[in-house]
């Protein structure tokens, strides 16, 4: 195996370029190096002007999502050796405006996320002295999968609906809404309903399924969306057929 590999990295410096250009760098090919290690090598040893986001290096912070050879990936969890002999093409995540080099603008997601109230909504708050809101393992299992989301934006990058209809709330926000809807301690189902059941909510999704395919944490946002579609449809039928008291 060669001891070096070429990384073709997208560069966009708004003060210099009207659109991104590719720049090649040669980095050491080490079995324990992830793509992010290669980028850090470029930043530290070859070209300090390269901009990208990263933090934890262990698939928790969700900062280092980029496009690697056309696929949305967490670069800290994607190894260089899997792409040997190279070259490896590294670009910013698609479907987001590029601020600089590999850094994308996720303000759109940050604006949409609070609209689904991704926190525990309570009708009544127990006094602190009464202790924690207890939950059985079965109740935890209901939503645990969705709580693994790290907001890495790979699902938005893989979603053609989000690319074509930027108003779509998107996979992660809906999965996070479901994380709370399915929590036995939560009472916010009604509060989230209007946003989730709107055209920009679950009905915007056409079930391409790539959000779940690229998710590095096994969250399955596509499943969360389809599940809420059934909830919303059942609720609409009940609203139509049952008197107010029977719902």
């Amino acid at each position, binding site marked *: 195996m060669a001891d070096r590999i070429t990384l073709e990295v997208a560069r966009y410096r708004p003060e210099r370029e009207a659109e991104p250009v590719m720049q090649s760098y040669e980095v050491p090919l080490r079995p324990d190096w992830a793509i992010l290690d290669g980028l850090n090598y470029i930043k530290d040893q070859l070209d300090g002007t390269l901009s990208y986001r990263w933090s934890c290096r262990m698939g928790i912070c969700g900062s280092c999502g980029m496009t690697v050879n056309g696929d949305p990936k967490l670069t800290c969890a994607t190894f260089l050796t899997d792409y040997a002999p190279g070259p490896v093409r590294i670009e910013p995540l698609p479907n987001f405006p590029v601020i600089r080099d590999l850094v994308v603008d996720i303000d759109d997601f940050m604006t949409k996320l609070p609209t689904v109230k991704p926190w525990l909504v309570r009708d009544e708050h127990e006094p602190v002295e009464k202790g924690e809101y207890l939950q059985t393992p079965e109740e935890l299992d209901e939503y645990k999968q969705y709580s693994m989301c790290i907001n890495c934006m790979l699902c938005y990058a893989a979603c053609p609906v989000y690319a074509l209809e930027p108003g779509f709330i998107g996979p992660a926000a809906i999965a996070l809404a479901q994380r709370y809807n399915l929590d036995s301690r939560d009472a916010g189902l009604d509060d989230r309903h209007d946003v989730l059941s709107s055209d920009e909510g679950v009905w915007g999704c056409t079930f391409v399924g790539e959000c779940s395919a690229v998710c590095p944490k096994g969250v399955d946002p596509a*499943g969360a969306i389809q599940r809420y*579609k059934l909830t919303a449809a059942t609720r609409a039928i009940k609203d139509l057929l049952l008197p107010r008291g029977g719902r």
Partner: protein
Amino acid sequence: MIETTGPYHRPISLFWWTRRRAYLVFVLRELSSVFVAWFVVYLLMLVSATSSGGDSYQRFQDWSGQVWVLALNIVSFLFILLHMVTWFGLAPKAMVVKLRARRVPPRAVLAGHYALCVLLSAIVAWLVLR
């Protein structure tokens, strides 16, 4: 002062759906709705011809036997199969079925859909062919 162009918005190619296999399957599945609609129209035409008497039914059969109608129906049938397989694939994701407080495995939900489809098809075949 350095002049900047601001965030770069990447254009979306008209052929974005050729970029990944899943996108292509998705577009074909969306297209399959046209063929589902055609089968509905075809069924209504069949019912109309049948209810209008033997001659009308015979004319409908002759028309249906033309190469282009046959080809259209074969293509439609393939798209209907794609439509069915993709919809059934969605079902276990949307339906969380519980039996005695345990979640029924998604494969069992999927198998249930296919079993029901086979059963209904057999009933229809029996009604038509008996």
